[in-house]
């Protein structure tokens, strides 16, 4: 029903647009110069005026109607519903709806039949009311807009303001979604911190949430506070990230230097996209590459020289993650190195510097802030990466900096905590939100830092 109306409105929109144009030309006596706004804008003006209010009504109706109907049905059948618990009430309404509008009915009784009748008649009324209102809004808009079209009318201003409103709305969606996610993280984390003190969480060195008391609450708090220490997870995350950066920074940076200053145009045209394909490989593919190819290889290699390597090692996960973030480092660094003006390279060459001297002493120092921010963005990407570490790093929350041992990361533990059946008020489940918040704060801080560096860099070259 909703989509039928939306399609009809679209038709009206197009028709009003065409008519508005025609009308504008007509009132101008086909002399474009007497019109304040071009005919297109008059078309847009009429189209917006006729359809936008009706469209808003349509959406509002779709949001509000089901709730209104439920409330009215409940108040109309108060004596039947009395004494029902919340799930029972929901089942009652579901069945009544199914009887009224078609669908699978669990079981029906007289009360539900009666509620279904109310549903049907209310829906009928709602439909008529909606249709009348929408037709009225469309016709009113057309009538008003049609009258308003005259050469001096500032249709362009109206259309541009409406478009601007649309743009604001779109960016607001992204912003409010972010705010919503952050708020939900914060509220769930607060519930967690009510059970586990925040200091025990952030500075605790023991992590074994699986041994938490079921239904852990304040009464079990004493035992539970000792097992939610995030430090081992942070150490594991940092270890794997450090390995990844040790792999990615030199390879990415040096390949960026090659691409920007040494590669001939045809080589660059092929090599750069190929490098960027690395970024397009799904992380789960990297994950099984790490778990099935790299990890056994490292273990075999370690055993051959007499080292004990666990089958899920930080080294394997870190190496593969490093390969994954190479394109971030190389692509971003390549951009900033290219942004160093050619005049600086010429100036250096003109003084008799070799190409490598020019790169080391002029180009890289000039590009350094940009390179740093590229590295930081790569780091924050590595910290948040999940799939590779889930598959290759293991679950044991060892607090170690030995890359040959199994470690676990914040992201892996979030996955583990939320897989399977959970209760939403247990410390175990809520810990995932606290970890998410922790991770969010770390990457946010890194990103802010990177953006500040980039900003400083921009000021230098404007």
């Amino acid at each position, binding site marked *: 029903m909703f989509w039928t109306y939306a399609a009809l409105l679209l038709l009206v929109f197009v028709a009003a647009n065409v008519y508005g144009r025609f009308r504008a030309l007509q009132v101008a006596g086909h002399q474009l110069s007497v019109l304040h706004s071009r005919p297109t804008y008059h078309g847009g003006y009429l189209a917006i005026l006729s359809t936008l209010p009706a469209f808003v009504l349509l959406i509002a109706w779709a949001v509000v109607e089901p709730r209104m109907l439920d409330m009215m049905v409940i108040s109309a059948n108060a004596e039947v519903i009395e004494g029902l618990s919340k799930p029972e009430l929901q089942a009652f309404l579901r069945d009544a709806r199914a009887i009224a509008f078609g669908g699978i009915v669990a079981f029906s009784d007289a009360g539900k039949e009666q509620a279904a009748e109310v549903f049907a008649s209310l829906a009928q009324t709602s439909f008529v009311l909606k249709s009348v209102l929408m037709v009225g809004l469309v016709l009113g808009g057309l009538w008003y807009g049609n009258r308003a079209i005259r050469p001096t009318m500032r249709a362009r201003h109206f259309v541009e303001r409406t478009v601007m409103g649309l743009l604001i709305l779109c960016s607001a969606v992204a912003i409010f979604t972010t705010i919503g996610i952050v708020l939900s993280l914060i509220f769930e984390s607060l519930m967690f911190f009510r059970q586990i003190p925040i200091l025990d969480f952030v500075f605790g060195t023991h992590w074994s949430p699986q041994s938490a008391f079921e239904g852990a609450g304040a009464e079990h708090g004493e035992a539970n506070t000792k097992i939610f220490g995030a430090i081992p997870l942070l150490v594991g995350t940092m270890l794997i990230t450090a390995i990844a950066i040790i792999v990615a920074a030199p390879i990415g940076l040096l390949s960026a230097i090659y691409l920007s200053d040494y590669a001939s145009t045809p080589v660059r045209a092929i090599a750069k996209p190929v490098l960027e394909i690395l970024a397009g490989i799904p992380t789960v593919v990297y994950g099984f590459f790490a778990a099935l190819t790299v990890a056994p290889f490292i273990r075999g290699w370690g055993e051959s020289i007499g080292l004990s390597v666990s089958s899920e090692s930080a080294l394997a996960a870190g190496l593969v993650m490093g390969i994954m973030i190479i394109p971030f480092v190389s692509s971003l660094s390549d951009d900033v190195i290219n942004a160093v003006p050619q005049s600086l390279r010429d*100036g250096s*060459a003109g*003084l008799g510097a070799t190409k490598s001297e020019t790169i080391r002493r002029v180009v890289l120092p000039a590009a350094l802030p940009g390179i740093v921010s590229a590295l930081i963005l790569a780091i924050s990407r590595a910290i948040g990466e999940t799939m590779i570490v889930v598959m290759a790093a293991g679950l044991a929350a060892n607090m170690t900096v030995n890359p040959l041992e199994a470690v676990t990361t914040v992201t892996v533990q979030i996955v583990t905590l939320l897989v399977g059946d959970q209760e939403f008020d247990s410390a175990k489940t809520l810990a995932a939100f606290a970890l998410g918040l922790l991770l969010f704060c770390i990457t946010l801080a890194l990103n802010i830092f990177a953006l500040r560096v980039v900003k400083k860099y921009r000021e230098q070259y404007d």
Partner: protein
Amino acid sequence: MALEMTTDTESAMDTTISAPPAVSAEGETLKMRGRDVKVFYGDKQALHGVDLDVRKNQVTALIGPSGCGKSTFLRCLNRMNDTIDICRVEGDILLDNDDVYDPRIDVVELRARVGMVFQKPNPFPKSIFENVAYGPRIHGLAQSKADLEEIVASSLQRAGLFEEVKDRLDEPGTGLSGGQQQRLCIARAIAVSPEVILMDEPCSALDPIATAKVEELIDELRQNYTIVIVTHSMQQAARVSQRTAFFHLGTLVEEGLTNDIFTNPKDQRTQDYITGRFG
């Protein structure tokens, strides 16, 4: 073209250094000589066989309308055209008696002898001191820190910038005004003690006062260096140069004493250009 072709320890410059310098008909030393220089950018020919001499301790101005090949010729003199992939140079360019396009010549050494100042001031994003010290450092000209400071100070002095910046040598070179930046670039070029300084429209991005200072500086530098300057301003050519060469459509139309070129040009095209009929 590879930048570092010289592998033998004995470079071409050392072997020929004893040959007597070339001289002009008037007995003036010829620092650089171009013979039948042709330059191609891909399929397009930019210079059609140019013969031009640069006399020692004089300022030679290259003038002509845009696209006439004067900058291209200038960039041939220290092989800055090497950085352009599709550029090809034919003919001979001699520095003293060395062919600069000889494969045995190390382009790095060449550019240390033939320095360049560019159209737009391009100080490195380093301190004023580091900008000037850059060349001496890479060529190992200073034995000690004191040596280096001495070179920097004297270069800045010769570029007429020392008094203005002596208290803030640690500040970034990019923070100076346009005219100061250009003089910093000249100081940077002087610091490696080149024999020839090439200037590609060095004043086109400067205001009149800064221009006057740079022109004054060019005139002073003539004592110690040989200077080739490309300029769009005929007044500037007349003010700073001893000899002027007029380029048109990739050919050298006329070359002679600046005075003669501007008062008594032999070629009709030169006459037309300097009186402002085209270009």
